[in-house]
């Protein structure tokens, strides 16, 4: 490293957390990787952000990031929303690392509610922000009891929730936070990603780390690990499909967001992964509304409405 390089704001330790804390979190991460899907408690620190804005994910990122890493931060698939922008700026200031919007170029991707469309590769780390690490919490409020249920592999209750879905809606209506079994042993919450992304967790070459700040839990999926979405024999797991293509890039493979255009019911469907969409358009793909004023308004860095989903 050359002395001329503009380093981080040296009022802070590198990556904000002190070295002891990072060491403690790394130990928790190693344990989490050794026992895939198991929730490891850790001594979560106060971060200069309110709980619910990604403090868990930030602590994990701060513990694994090095000065030569390249960081990407996404929120609902977008690089340019408030949460993503503020976390990216935070790490620029306390680490001085390079940041990118390109999935392929990132060493670490911190995410809220999505897995990028571009397949990840070995050596990359995906850090999830986790609002509620316990998939059984809504069914069983006692922590002592859910720990026993994990310990003894008593997961029948989770199927009761899916049963209730089918009984009420005719199909499994859970579309996000869709529970998964990791390595055939631990039931795990995939965080509020759409179930569209669940299959990407399976056998992924990248390391997947999960940090819950308020609940002070860390869990992980090592590369190439079996991750199965729960289902019934006669109601198998299925991902969402759209009758539309992306209105901007024309993709039929990506996860689409619905955007309301006016008061008379006009709407369009666009990729939630902004980098994926922009890359396709740059390569010459285009969708039905690619040339209009709406498309210009939705172009990268034009800002995007925050949705009402639970915050991580």
């Amino acid at each position, binding site marked *: 490293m050359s002395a001329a390089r503009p380093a981080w704001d040296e009022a802070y330790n590198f990556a904000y957390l002190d070295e002891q804390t990072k060491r403690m979190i790394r130990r928790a991460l190693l344990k989490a990787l050794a026992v895939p899907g198991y929730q490891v408690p850790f001594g979560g620190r106060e971060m200069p952000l309110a709980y619910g804005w990604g403090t868990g994910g930030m602590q994990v990122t701060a513990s694994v990031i090095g000065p030569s890493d390249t960081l990407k931060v996404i929120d609902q698939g977008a690089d340019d929303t408030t949460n993503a922008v503020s976390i990216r700026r935070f790490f620029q200031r306390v680490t001085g690392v390079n940041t990118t919007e390109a999935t392929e170029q990132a060493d670490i991707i911190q995410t809220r509610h999505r897995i990028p469309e571009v397949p990840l590769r070995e050596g990359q780390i995906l850090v999830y922000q986790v609002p509620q690490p316990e998939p059984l919490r809504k069914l069983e409020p006692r922590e002592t009891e859910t720990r*026993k249920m994990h310990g*003894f592999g008593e997961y*029948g*209750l989770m199927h009761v929730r899916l049963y*209730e879905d089918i009984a009420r809606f005719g199909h499994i209506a859970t579309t996000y936070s869709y529970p998964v079994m990791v390595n055939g042993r631990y039931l795990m919450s995939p965080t509020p990603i759409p179930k569209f992304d669940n299959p990407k967790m399976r056998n992924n070459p990248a390391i997947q780390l999960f940090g819950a700040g308020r609940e002070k839990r860390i869990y992980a999926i090592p590369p190439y690990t079996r991750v199965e979405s729960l289902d019934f*024999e006669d109601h198998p797991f299925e991902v969402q499909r759209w009758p539309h293509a992306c209105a901007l890039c024309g993709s039929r493979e990506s996860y689409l967001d619905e955007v309301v255009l006016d008061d008379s019911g006009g709407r369009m469907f666009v990729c939630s992964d902004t980098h994926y969409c922009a890359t396709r358009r740059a390569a010459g793909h285009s969708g039905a509304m690619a040339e209009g004023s709406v498309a210009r308004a939705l172009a990268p860095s034009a800002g995007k409405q925050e949705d009402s989903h639970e915050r991580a």
Partner: protein
Amino acid sequence: MSALEAVTAPRAAVRPLLRVCGLSKSYGETVGCVDVSFTLYPGEVIGIVGESGSGKSTLLNLLCAQLEPDAGTVEYDVGGEGLRDVFCLPEPQRRRLMRTDWGLVHQNPRDGLRMDVSAGGNVGERLMAVGARHYGAIRGEALDWLSRVELDGGRIDDRPKHFSGGMQQRLQIARNLVTRPRLVFMDEPTGGLDVSVQARLLDLLRGLVREMGIAAVVVTHDLAVVRLLADRLMVMRRGRVVEEGLTDQVLDDPHHPYTQLLVSSVLQV
């Protein structure tokens, strides 16, 4: 005698299902129960009666391993392989017992049901807990059980919080019996119900218990309940069993002063 010969074929020696020895529990100075022993055989129904504070609920909680005794043992014929001390079983095995081989009917159905899960989900939970993964089959079984406890199958997707007390209690019974347990613990199963509803529930329980050959421990202060349900009776007072025997023998020819008082205090109708 031909008809009788058909049913008097020699039976294999029957092994006990539950054996309780010297069970005691106190809460500081307060006595829970003292030195209770009995043996229960498959298909036998034993009633435990006594007034409030006599220790019958403590005893029930000890029997179904919800409470650890100060002294004594509770042994159960786990998996038909002989008696084993339930407090020495590994916890996962004990918990598995609780949701397969045992049933627990609470006095208040709210303690035994998931009030925000549909009737079908409540009945299906134990099936899913033991690995049932076919929605149609689970639902079919749930429907069958709703009809067996005389609940309208059309209410399978309704939540029990919209059910009457009697319906909730019947749902709780279905939820427990769906895995065909060999032993069911009941804590005042008719408590808090209207008299007219009580009779229906008792009759239903009696039929199911006999038909399925379930052994049961029924705790109640209502002598009419044990008269109808129980083969045997234990009368408890201040934590001790003061009299036991055949139900009709204890009720019709009580020997202990307390039992005589208990029996003579019941209004005859």
